[in-house]
């Protein structure tokens, strides 16, 4: 069976310094897969390669059996790979609702959904209703009328998640979705992600520093160190791996 997202032999260097060395990763449809590793292990670079922000020097990226290695980021998004950024990027000058409207209108444009959405000036009532519905799923419904710049950090992260969800992705790449959140927010976010992933049968790939989040969410874990995969498997397998304990979990779970 083909995976949702399969990367083989990814090699990427910045100048002389190799950041990813022959990385393989295979995310099955409908599963949540975590990439962990110390700072500088190459997690974010792997994310950029998978999402199309940068191209790998060698190796291939397949999405549901289709080679997307040479596709730009926006083309991969159109195929169904949504992503969020490590530091949430939203359109701060616009209202939360308008942020969602842009995502929905973009989808209507590239998916050739409805001609009505290309014309007219105000967003159509259908677009606005859908925007509000998506905001409800990330519990931002009551913030719809606010300017995005005034959102709290956790809310901004959720808005970014809503932007990605609005494109109806088949797979989500979440770069440190919980970074900078308070422990309380994290629990809410974990529950929310679980719910969304289950409801929409989406594959999720995430990087995360907080091990409790990883073990609460992930079906599979891949451990990166110095640009190489040093362990891969279920959370239990990874947790019990001696190599991983030594270099990564040692100081936390000793």
């Amino acid at each position, binding site marked *: 069976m083909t995976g949702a997202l399969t990367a083989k032999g990814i090699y990427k260097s910045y100048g002389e310094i190799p950041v990813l060395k022959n990385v393989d990763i295979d995310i099955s449809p409908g599963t949540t897969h975590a990439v962990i590793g110390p700072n500088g292990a190459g997690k974010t670079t792997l994310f950029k390669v998978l*999402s199309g*922000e940068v191209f790998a020097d060698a190796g291939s990226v397949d999405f549901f059996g289709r080679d997307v290695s040479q596709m*730009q*980021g*926006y083309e991969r*998004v*159109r195929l169904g790979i*949504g*992503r969020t*950024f490590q530091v949430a*990027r*939203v*359109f*701060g*000058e*616009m*209202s*939360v*609702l*308008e942020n969602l*409207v*842009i*995502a929905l*209108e*973009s*989808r209507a*444009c*590239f998916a050739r959904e409805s001609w009505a*959405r*290309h*014309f*007219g*000036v*105000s*967003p159509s*009532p259908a677009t*606005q*209703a859908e925007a*509000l519905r998506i905001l409800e799923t990330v519990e931002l419904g009551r913030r*719809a*009328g606010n300017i995005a710049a005034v959102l709290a950090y956790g809310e901004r992260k959720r808005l970014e998640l809503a*932007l*990605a969800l609005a*494109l109806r992705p088949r797979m989500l790449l979440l770069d440190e979705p919980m970074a900078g959140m308070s422990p309380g927010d994290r629990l809410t976010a974990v529950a929310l992600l679980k719910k969304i992933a289950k409801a929409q049968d989406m594959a999720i790939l995430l990087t995360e520093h907080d091990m409790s989040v990883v073990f609460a969410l992930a079906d599979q874990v891949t451990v990166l160190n110095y640009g190489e995969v040093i362990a891969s498997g279920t959370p239990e397998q990874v947790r019990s791996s001696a190599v991983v304990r030594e270099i990564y979990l040692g100081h936390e779970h000793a």
Partner: protein
Amino acid sequence: MNSPLQPTGLWVTHRRDMALVALLIVAFATIPLWADGGLRFLAGMALVQIVFALSFNVIFGLAGLVSFGHAAYFAAGAYTAGLLLQKGVPIPLPLILVIGALVGGALALFVAALALRRSSGNYFAILTLALAELLHIVISKSTVLGREDGLTGLKPPRLDLGITTVDLSQGHALYFLLLVVTLVAGFCAWLLWRGPLGRRLAATRLEPDRAAFLGINVHRARMQAFALSGVGAGLAGAMYAPLAQILTPEVAHWSFSALPILFCLLGGAASFWGPVAGVVVFLGVEHATRTVVGLSEIMIGVTLLTVVLVFPGGLAGGVQRLVHSLSASRRASTALTQGKAQA
């Protein structure tokens, strides 16, 4: 709080837009009734510059691209119309305007295809300037375009309206035609500015990476914006030719490219109405100080300096903030009196 499902903000904006349009129509349509020929000519020029500035702001204020060579597309439209008028090609003026607009758009698309390949920042701005200067030189060396002397005696042909024909070179006919064209062009710019494409362009300006990961082809969106902006600039140029009746290479000079930048900064590039306000104020100051040589430059300089220092959002931004703070203080005072009543 207002329900987010009814974007009252947007509807209020639209109502305000309609009111401003009505005000402008009344102001410009009544000018021939009381003004002399000189002022009417100036009002015609203001219409041309409004179309020019609105089209420039599509890339500047909306898409966030800086072009220092917008005179090139203006000149392309102007000389296209100028040649057609001079040779007496038997096509009606509205069609000449459309042709001029398309030539401006085609040139802008070509320049964008060249210059947007590498960057959208400083290098892009310099490349647009260089290509515009190239056109300026070509025009001033081309015999068919009249070299430095330009094209003269550009009279608009009679316009056949079916039931009657209008002599556009007599009376106010040309002025009213230009007013109608400005309204149509302004409406198109407004649709673009407030509609889905405008929202996507604003997205590419604010967060290009985020926009790309919403499936927006940022490069293509910028190309579209630049080409559409070129169409507007070409139209403005084609409007200019029959109004000025003379074309010189000046219209392709870099100092002519500086005009829309000035209008947008003066009026406020972040707002749809900013460029319009900029044109009206700029030409108003110039007209009021026309008797003293050099005074208009000083006045414009002082005005621009004041606006940049006091209202960072231009005149439109300043007015918006003023309205905002007024309504905020009104709300605060009602809240205060209500609080007192409750106490």
